[in-house]
């Protein structure tokens, strides 16, 4: 082995801990990039493949009752490739293992088999079209109830209680993300999909020869707009509620929203983090090599060409780089698969394609190596430029200058060891800045990820404590008069009841328009309230429409502007209404109007199709039992259950992300601090040993080294908080989607946690170096200078 290579090995053996620490910091950056991109791309590819193979429809429309005779005309519309008409309804189920009713979306299966939205048969067989009691159910619903083919359960179908028998378990591209009305969160126990034969569905819902749900697939390249317009025109006489594309299909929208959050996670944080880690690696490696200055001088003096010397150190840097990149890739792939699987479990995919983009690997690998090599070269060339004699000589004693530190020292009567710390920081501000920046970055990263818990909690509070104070919401199968509210009061345990009326509308302002649900409520509703922009519950203005901040922004309207509102229910009129308020709504999308105002527009007596109830909790079982047997009810939402599910799901989803980022914060802080301390120790061993000669104890000497690091770490924390808050703002915006607005809420415990994690990591790393300091032999350290 050439002498230089032998030196390389010895250096590696000596510096392995530092090399590893730098590699780990780099690995963190590489890992985040690979991880987030990998999960995002995998889910995207999986979804695209699933949609394609199972022919997920492009367009969707609902109606009250449209004759099948209409279908040839629809199929003949230019641009339409395939059409499937179905019967769909939301119903209540009486599951043997549940006190409260469950809900299901019932869908008819065409006798010849589905042509669109092909369900995937996971177990058993499809129901026999000639046996009306046979159904297939969604796999997750079955799993949640332990249902297997052959099992039965009861359903309230259009007012009649029927026993249904399970023949098979299915998954469907229409329900990758499946949840019932109101809940916003998949709950496999309380909501499922039930597929039944077309004839059975037609007779159950009294829709013989008719359909109420339509899905279409467009020919390649066809424009959706004219088809949508034609569908609206054709379905209008039959109670059409507005045709729409995938952008209003609930599962697709939520999936899209999750994917865009993942993408934000892949696009915002990792590059920032990667750049930071690359910068730190570059700085630390440069300093490590600066320590080699005398050796470089010597090598030059004995005649090694600059190239050979540079190559020697490049090998070291490349080793760090390769180790860091490899570690990062491995961790990124591993965690990427984990994260993908986590999401996949949350969504309902029949299979997964793990497709970590090659780009993330290539970019992270190249930049990772480049940073380490550039850092090393910087150090090498700084040393190579010096004449060998100068390089070999011990560096000239550093010149310190008098300044603020002296004033401070005198005023506070600081100890000399403290003065050493302060002078060291002010003499080498760049060096201190790297350590500072390392900790700032880690704290910022922790704040900007941990805050999601606070944001989610704020959102949950807003939805469940401020907004929705009702405990139970009942959905009526058909709208009824205000008498329904009176009837609800007679149900067991009901203390108060309020009605609400939901109707689909098309709203537009200028060129922006969209299909959306409008909900009418009593003006001074006590149970269900909107939250004003200041976060306080508010009552609905007596006239005009109320929009959420998100929708208002999308449409470009403000209070006082006018909005075109097309009611998609009889008498199907278009109105020009003022926007009277803009409210805060983190979750879900709908617009509001006062009950009286809406029914005045519709020129009919007030109606309700939802009932919000305040219930004596002790009477809930009795209420459940009654609801299961009450015809005319299509759904029930128990808000405490929704909240529990919400909490649990968020907990699960956020905790993995949080663990990952907390680990990154720890590794990054520890890596930077460990290296800073090791380098300091190498540079100052002599000075510190001479303190031991003077009779300073190990602890007192360690104070000089550990104290400096911890002072920087402590100073870094508030800066980290500030930066973290700024990044959190970007994250909140990036993560907000059409369905979910992430509020920028950061609570004190989050700041504290981020600070403590970083401090702990810094202290741990500094103490690891202290062990080396303690082990220094005084006599040989003193000799080293000579």
């Amino acid at each position: 082995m050439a002498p230089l290579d032998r030196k390389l090995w010895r250096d590696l053996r000596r510096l392995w801990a530092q090399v590893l620490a730098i590699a780990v910091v780099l690995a963190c950056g590489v890992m985040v990039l690979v991880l987030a991109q990998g999960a995002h791309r995998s889910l995207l590819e999986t979804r695209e493949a699933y949609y394609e193979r199972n022919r997920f429809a492009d367009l969707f429309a609902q109606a009250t009752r449209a004759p099948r005779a209409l279908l040839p005309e629809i199929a003949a519309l230019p641009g339409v490739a395939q059409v499937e008409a179905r019967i769909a309804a939301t119903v209540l189920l009486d599951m043997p293992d549940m006190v409260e009713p469950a809900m299901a979306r019932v869908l008819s299966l065409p006798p010849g088999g589905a042509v669109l939205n092909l369900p995937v048969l996971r177990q058993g067989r499809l129901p026999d079209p000639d046996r009306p009691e046979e159904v297939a159910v969604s796999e997750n619903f079955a799993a949640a109830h332990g249902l297997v083919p052959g099992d039965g359960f009861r359903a309230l179908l259009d007012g009649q209680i029927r026993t249904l028998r399970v023949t098979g378990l299915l998954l469907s591209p229409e329900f990758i993300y499946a949840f019932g009305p109101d809940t916003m969160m998949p709950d496999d126990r309380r909501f499922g999909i039930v597929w039944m034969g077309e004839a059975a569905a037609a007779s159950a819902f009294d829709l013989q020869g008719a359909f109420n749900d339509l899905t279409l697939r467009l020919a390649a390249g066809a424009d959706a707009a004219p088809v949508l317009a034609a569908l609206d025109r054709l379905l209008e006489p039959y109670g059409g509620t507005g045709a729409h594309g995938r952008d209003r299909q609930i599962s697709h929208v939520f999936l899209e929203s999750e994917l865009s959050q993942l993408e934000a996670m892949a696009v915002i944080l990792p590059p920032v983090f990667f750049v930071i880690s690359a910068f730190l690696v570059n700085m630390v490696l440069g300093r490590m090599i600066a320590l080699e200055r005398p050796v470089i001088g010597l090598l030059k003096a004995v005649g090694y060409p600059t190239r050979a010397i540079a190559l020697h150190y490049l090998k070291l840097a490349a080793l760090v780089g390769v180790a860091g990149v490899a570690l990062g890739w491995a961790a990124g792939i591993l965690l990427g698969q984990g994260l993908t699987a986590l999401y996949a479990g949350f969504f309902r995919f029949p299979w997964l394609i793990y497709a970590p983009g090659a780009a993330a690997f290539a970019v992270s690998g190249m930049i990772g190596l480049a940073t380490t090599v550039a850092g090393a070269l910087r150090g090498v060339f700084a040393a190579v430029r010096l004449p060998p004699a100068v390089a070999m000589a011990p560096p000239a004693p550093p010149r310190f200058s008098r300044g603020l530190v002296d004033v401070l020292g005198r005023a506070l009567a600081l100890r000399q060891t403290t003065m050493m710390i302060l002078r060291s920081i002010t003499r080498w501000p760049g060096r201190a800045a790297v350590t500072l920046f390392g900790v700032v970055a880690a704290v910022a990263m922790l704040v900007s990820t941990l805050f999601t818990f606070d944001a989610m909690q704020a959102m949950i509070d807003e939805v469940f404590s401020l907004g929705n104070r009702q405990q139970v919401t009942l959905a009526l199968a058909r709208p009824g008069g205000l008498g329904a509210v009176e009837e609800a009061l007679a149900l067991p345990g009901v203390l108060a009841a309020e009605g609400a009326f939901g109707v689909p509308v098309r709203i537009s302002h200028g060129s922006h328009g969209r299909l959306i649900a409008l909900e009418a409520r009593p003006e001074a509703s006590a149970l269900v309230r909107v939250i004003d922009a200041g976060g306080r519950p508010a009552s609905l203005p007596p006239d005009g429409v109320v929009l959420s901040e998100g929708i208002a922004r999308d449409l470009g309207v403000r209070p006082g502007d006018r909005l075109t509102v097309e009611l998609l229910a009889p008498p199907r009129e278009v109105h020009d209404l003022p926007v009277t308020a803009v409210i805060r709504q983190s979750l879900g999308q709908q617009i509001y109007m006062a009950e009286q105002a809406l029914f005045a527009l519709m020129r009919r007596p007030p109606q309700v199709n939802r009932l919000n109830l305040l219930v004596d909790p002790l009477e809930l079982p009795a209420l459940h039992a009654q609801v299961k047997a009450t015809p005319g009810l299509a759904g029930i939402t128990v808000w405490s259950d929704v909240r529990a599910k919400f909490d649990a799901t968020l907990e699960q989803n956020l905790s993995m992300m949080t663990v990952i980022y907390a680990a990154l914060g720890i590794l990054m802080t520890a890596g930077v601090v460990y290296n800073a301390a090791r380098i300091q120790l190498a540079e100052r061993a002599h000075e510190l040993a001479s303190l031991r000669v003077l009779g300073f104890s190990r602890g007192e000497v360690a104070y000089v080294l550990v104290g400096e690091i911890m002072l920087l770490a402590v100073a870094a924390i508030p800066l980290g908080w500030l930066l973290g808050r700024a990044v959190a703002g970007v994250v909140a915006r990036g993560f907000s989607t059409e369905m979910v607005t992430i509020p920028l809420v950061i609570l004190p415990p989050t700041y504290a946690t981020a600070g403590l994690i970083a401090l702990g990591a810094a202290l741990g790393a500094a103490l690891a170096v202290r062990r080396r300091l303690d082990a220094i032999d005084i006599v040989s350290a003193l000799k080293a200078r000579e």
Partner: protein
Amino acid sequence: MSHPRAVFRTEGITKVYDTGAVQVHALRGVDLALNEGELVVLLGASGSGKSTLLNILGGLDRPTAGRVFFRERELTRASEAELTRFRRDHVGFVFQFYNLVPSLTARENVALVTEIARAPLRPEEALARVGLAHRLDHFPAELSGGEQQRVAIARAIAKRPEVLLCDEPTGALDSAAGVQVLEALVAVNEEMGAATAIITHNQATRRIAHRVLVLADGRLVREEVNDTRLAPAEVHW
């Protein structure tokens, strides 16, 4: 010195460095005493074990065998923490390469020690004793070698040590600066009564001592007592 009382006493100390392949016998059984108020010069060829001996006396190192007493205390039985305490309270060191903390001024370098000592001089006073009253706020890099060494001496004496151990204190200095340093050491020895041991390669320096000890190959080979001492300025280099 009618009743010499020993500050240090050693009994047959040996020091063996085990460097794997070879064993280096740096000290091969040294018995000596260093008395109160005494100024001793240690002479000997390079590698004869002078520094090793001084480091052991000062509690920076431990002998392989033998015993070292500081007054009644046996240093060879002291724990790490006790040795630290011992150095802090009783010993002043001066090395060839001053070992000042570069980030602290002259005054602060001395204060470094006075802050942890029991009954120290004021830093200004210690510096005045070595003739540096006018250089209080200079950083080491702003001082000449001789001045730096005198700061080191001021730092060593500021704790009012009972012993002052100096390993080639003039080794890096020219003769004029060397004389100033030796003058400072002699003055401190006389005024403060600290037992002082000075290692030197300069044969002429022997004339300033009360007693001269000569080491060769790890053994004490000769002891001379000076009936008449010279002042440092009278010594010819």
